[in-house]
C-alpha cells in the first residue's frame, strides 16, 4: 500500500502544466483533489511517472454562476459547490447531486471537475453533466476547446482527451424555466458509491402539463446515460402524471450489469423506483416554478 516511485511537479500556470505534460508524455498524470488517484497509487494499480499537481495554478477554484449556467473551475471542491447558493439557484441539481458525493472529508478535498475527468460511471457529477447537457473546457498546447459531455465520456474511466491536456472547468447549463429537478441514489452504506442513482429534469408547458421528462443514471452503464422518458407522461397534468409508467419505461431502457452488491435485475428495479420517485419530486418543483 505504498505508491511506486513517481516524480512530482506543481506548476503555477496552465501553460506550465501543459509544458510539463508535453515533456513528461503519457506517464504524467494530473493531480487535483486526489480522492480517486491517490488510492490507485497506493494500491499500485496506477504508477504514473510524474504527478502534475495543479493545486497551485491560480484562478481554477472559481464557481461562476450566470444566467445561462454554472461554470465550475478545476480546483473547486465538492464541498465548495455544495455550499454555493448561487450555483444552486441557477442549476439546483448541482447541490442536490453533490450532497450525495461520499463523505464530508472526501468532499472537502475532492474536486467536481476531477471526478468528471475521472469518468467513473458511478460518479454523481458525470451524470449531472450529462443530464444538464453540459460540457468541459480542455486546455491543450493547441489552445482551448469545449467538448460536450457526449463526446467526452468514452467508457468507464475513459475520456476522449488524450495527450497533453488538462480539463479547466465544467459548464452546467441553467435549469430551463417551468422545470424542476430531483436527485436520489441508493447506496449500501451512506456515502458509498451508489448501487443505483438517478437525476431527473421535468419541464412543463404553460398549462402545467408535462412537456419533457429526462433522467440520467449512475452505476447502470459504462458511461453516463440520459434517457428521455417524455413519452410515458407527455401532456399529462403534472399533479396526476403517471410517474410509475415513466419508471417502467426507464426500467426497459437500461441495461445494467450485476456485481457483488446488486444484480442486474435489482438495478432495474431501482431504476424504476428511483425514476418514479424523483420525477414526482421534480414535477412538484416544476409546478411550483410554473405558478
Amino acid at each position, binding site marked *: 500500500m505504498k505508491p511506486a516511485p513517481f516524480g512530482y511537479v506543481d506548476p503555477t500556470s496552465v501553460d506550465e502544466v501543459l509544458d510539463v505534460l508535453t515533456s513528461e508524455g503519457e506517464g504524467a498524470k494530473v493531480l487535483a483533489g486526489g480522492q480517486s488517484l491517490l488510492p490507485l497509487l497506493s494500491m*499500485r494499480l496506477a504508477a504514473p511517472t510524474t504527478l502534475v499537481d495543479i493545486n497551485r495554478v491560480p484562478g481554477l477554484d472559481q464557481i461562476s454562476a450566470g444566467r445561462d449556467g454554472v461554470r465550475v473551475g478545476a480546483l473547486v471542491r465538492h464541498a465548495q459547490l455544495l455550499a454555493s447558493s448561487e450555483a444552486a439557484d441557477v442549476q439546483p441539481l448541482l447541490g442536490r447531486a453533490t450532497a450525495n458525493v461520499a463523505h464530508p472529508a472526501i468532499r472537502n478535498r475532492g474536486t467536481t471537475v476531477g471526478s468528471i475527468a475521472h469518468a467513473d460511471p458511478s460518479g454523481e457529477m458525470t451524470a449531472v453533466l450529462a443530464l444538464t447537457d453540459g460540457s468541459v473546457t480542455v486546455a491543450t498546447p493547441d489552445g482551448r476547446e469545449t467538448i460536450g459531455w457526449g463526446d467526452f465520456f468514452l467508457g468507464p474511466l475513459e475520456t476522449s482527451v488524450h495527450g497533453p491536456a488538462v480539463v479547466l472547468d465544467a459548464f452546467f447549463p441553467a435549469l430551463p424555466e417551468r422545470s424542476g429537478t430531483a436527485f436520489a441514489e441508493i447506496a449500501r*452504506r*451512506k456515502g458509498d458509491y451508489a*448501487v443505483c442513482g438517478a437525476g431527473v429534469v421535468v419541464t412543463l408547458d404553460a398549462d402545467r402539463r408535462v412537456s419533457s421528462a429526462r433522467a440520467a443514471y449512475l452505476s447502470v452503464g459504462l458511461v453516463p446515460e440520459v434517457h428521455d422518458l417524455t413519452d410515458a407522461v407527455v401532456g399529462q397534468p403534472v399533479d396526476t402524471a403517471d410517474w410509475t409508467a415513466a419508471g417502467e419505461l426507464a426500467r426497459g431502457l437500461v441495461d445494467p450489469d450485476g456485481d*457483488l*452488491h446488486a444484480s442486474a*435485475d435489482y438495478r432495474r428495479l431501482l431504476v424504476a423506483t428511483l425514476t418514479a420517485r424523483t420525477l414526482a419530486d421534480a414535477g412538484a418543483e416544476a409546478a411550483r416554478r410554473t405558478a
Partner: protein
Amino acid sequence: MTTKFFGEPVRRREDARLIIGQGRYLDDIGSGAYAAAFVRSPYAHARVLDIDVSAAMDVEGLLAIYTYEDLTGPLAEPLPVLIPHPQLTAPRTGYPLVKDVAQHVGEPIVMVVATDRYIAEDAAGLIEISYEELPVVVGVDAAEAAEHTVHDDVPDNIAARHHQETGDVEAALAASAHTFSFTQYFERSASMPMEGKGVHARWDDADSSLRVYSSTQASTSVRAAIAAKLELSMEKVEVIAPDVGGGFGVKIVHPWPEELLVPMAARRLGHEVKWTEDRREHFISSAHERQQRQEITVGYDDDGRITALDVLVWHDNGAYTPYGIIVPINTATQLCGPYDIPVYRARVNSVYTNTVIVTPYRGAGRPQGTFAMERTMDRIAQERGIDRALVRERNLIQPDQFPYDWGLTFQDGRPLIYDSGDYPAMMAKLKVLVDWDGFAARRAEAEARGKLLGIGMAPYVEGTGPGPYEGAHVQVLGSGKVLVSTGLTSQGQGHETVFAQLAAAELGVPLEDVVVTTGDTRRFGYAVGTFASRAAVVSGNAVALAARGVKEKALRIAAEVLEADPADLEIDEGLVQVKGTPGASIPLRTVAVLSNPLRYAFDEAARQATQFSGPGDDSKPPVAVGDAPGLEHTDYYSPLRSTFASGAHAVVVEIDPATWEIAIEQYAVVHDCGTIINPMIVEGQVHGGVAQGVGGALYERMAYDRDGQLTNASFMDFLMPYSSEVPDVDIDHQSTPSPLNELGIKGAGEAGVIPGSAAIASAIEDAVGRRIAAMPISPTELYDLVRSDAERVTNSSPHDSGAMA
C-alpha cells in the same frame, strides 16, 4: 471492599490520550527501523516452483530477502497447533514462509527488508515466482464433496470430527410428537480492527536479547513462542503490546509468521525491523470466521417444548488449524442458549478450504450456534401457531435449575455448567423494552405508509471468563502512586479504567492515583491473554486480590505506627486511619515508604525509612522473616470453570418493498453480565458488539470466488457498517452475580455481537413472510428471495391462541 468506584459509570481514563493522538500504536514505534514487506501467494492453491529475486537485488536500499530456504532450526518447522484436541485428528499448520505449496491467497512466500516500506514494496514487486496451480477448494460444500483436497494427506478435507451428546437423540426424536429438519448457511466475516497487525523488533547484540512490540492480544505467549522458535532463553526476550487499535479475536492467534520473521530479521541484520500490516494484507492473510452449513433436526411437543435436538455442522476452518477447534466447539456447546433441552447431540465436521484461516472473531462460533437455535425456535412457533416469544418462554431454563449441568465439555476442557441466571425475567424485560405485545399497531402504521415492518428476537448464553488463570501486581510507591499491572493485554476495552476502579475500591485510594499497565512482559510475565470475555472476570478478580494483599500489609504496618489493631483501621482517600478517631492517621504513601527499610535517603520521603530516623525494635530484623520490603503484592485468580453471561436482543426492521432496503427501526438489548464494575463500559461493549452483529447480518461477507480469490478485499467492497448504518441501542441491564468468583462478575466483551444475525433474520422473515435460509442478507438478495419459491412464513401474534394441533 468499599463500594466507591465499583459499579460507577467512571469515564474511560484512556480515551483522552487515545483521542488526541497521544496513543502509542505499533507503527508509532521505531521510526528508524528497517521495513519489511511480503510477497504473498496470488493463488489459492499452488506449488511454488521457482523464486527469482535477481531483478530485486538491484533495488537501492534493499537489505535482505528471505525465503523458506533461509529459515533454520525450529523456524523451519510448521507453526504450532496452539490448542491441540483429541478430536482434531488431522491438524495442519503452515510454515512462516511457504515451503512448497501455498494453501490460500495471501500466504507469505518471501520476506523483503529494506530501508523503508516503499523500497521494500518496490523490491517485492520485482520478485518473480513461478507456480504450478493446483485445484482449489472453496466453501464447506466443496470441502465436503472432497473432489479435490486442500492437504494431500487429508483426503476427506476433514480436520476434526467433534461430537458431543447428552443422551440418545435418535430415540428421543423418534419419540417426539413432531419433528422437522432444515439446512441453513452462515457466511464469513472478520474481526477487522482499525489497526491491523504489526511487529517491531530490536536485537541488542551485546546483551543477546530481543525486545519485541506486537499488536497482539497475548504478549506473554508471543514471548514464549518467539523464544522457542528463535532458540532464545525466555529471559532474553521481552514482548510488549503497546496501545492496540482493536483486536476482536484476530490478534489472539500467535505466533503469526511475521511475529517470528521480524525478530529473526532484526537479529540477523543487527538493526530494528518493523512490519505494519496494510489493509489488503489484513484481508487476505489474517483470520476470518463464521462460515458454516448447519443441518438441524428437532423434536417437540404440542406446546412447542423441545424434546430432542440434533445438529450437524459443517464448519469451514480455512487452510490451517493453528487455533485448534475452539470455534466449532463453541458452536456445538453454546448452541442451546438459555433453553432446557432434554436430549441434545452436536456433531461438527471441521473442514479445510483454500481460504484464510478461521479463528475466533468476537462471538467465536456462538453467533452461528445462536442462529441455529433461534431459527429452530421461530420454526417451531410457526409450525405450532404459537407466538415466538411464548415458545421461547416455554423452553427456558428456570431460575431454580442452576447450576445447570449440560453433561457436555466446554471449550476450556471443563464441564459445561451454567452457574447462574434468570432467563424468564430477562425475556420479560426484553418484551417490555421492545413492546413486543404492542407490535401489531406499529406494523399496521407502517403498512399504511407502504412499508413492511417485522420484529424478531434472540436470546443467548455465553460462557465467559475461562481459565486457566490471570494475575496482577499492585504496588504503592512512596509518592502515593499505585501501580497495577497485568500480563493480560488491552485492545481498547477500557482495562485502564476498570482495573483502576477495582484497585482504588479495594485500597481506598483516589482513582487518579492508580496507573494501570497491561500486556508488558517486563512488568508481568504470567498471563494467558485477552479473549473469551475473560479480562474483567479473571484479571479483574486477580487485581482485587492483589490490591487486597497490599491493603492487608499496609494496615499491618500502619497499625504498628498508630499503635492500633489492624482490624480497627480503614483506608479512605489514601489515608490510613483509626475508625472513629479523627487525627489518628497516616498517609498510605508514608506506609509505602516505611515498608521498605532504607540505608540511603535519596529524597525527603525516604529519610523516614532510614536506619537512624527513629526508634526501632532492636529485637527483630528490619524485615521480618517471611515478609518482604515494599508495599506490593502479586496475586492470581484461577477460575474453577467459566461463568455464563446471558442476554436477549430484539429488533424491529422496516423494509421498503420498492427497493428492499432494510432499515433497523429499533434494537433492544437486555444484558446480564453479573455484577457490573462500570455500566458505561459495559454499554459501550454492547454497542460495539451490536455494530458488529449488524455488520455480520446485513453488510459484511468475505466474497471468495471459485478460484479462491477474495473479490472484495478492501473497505470499498467489504461493507463494514459506518456509524450511519448502526442503530441506536436501547439497553436494560439485569444482574445475576456469578457464584463462582468473589466479585460476582461474568464477561461482557463479546455478548453484543452474538444474537445479531438470529434476531435480524427473524425480523426480516417476519416482515416479508419468506423463509431466510442464509445470512447475511442484502437488499439485492432480499429482492431475489421475495421473488423466489422460498417457503412462505406466517408468524402468530402474541394474542393468537396456543397450538393449532
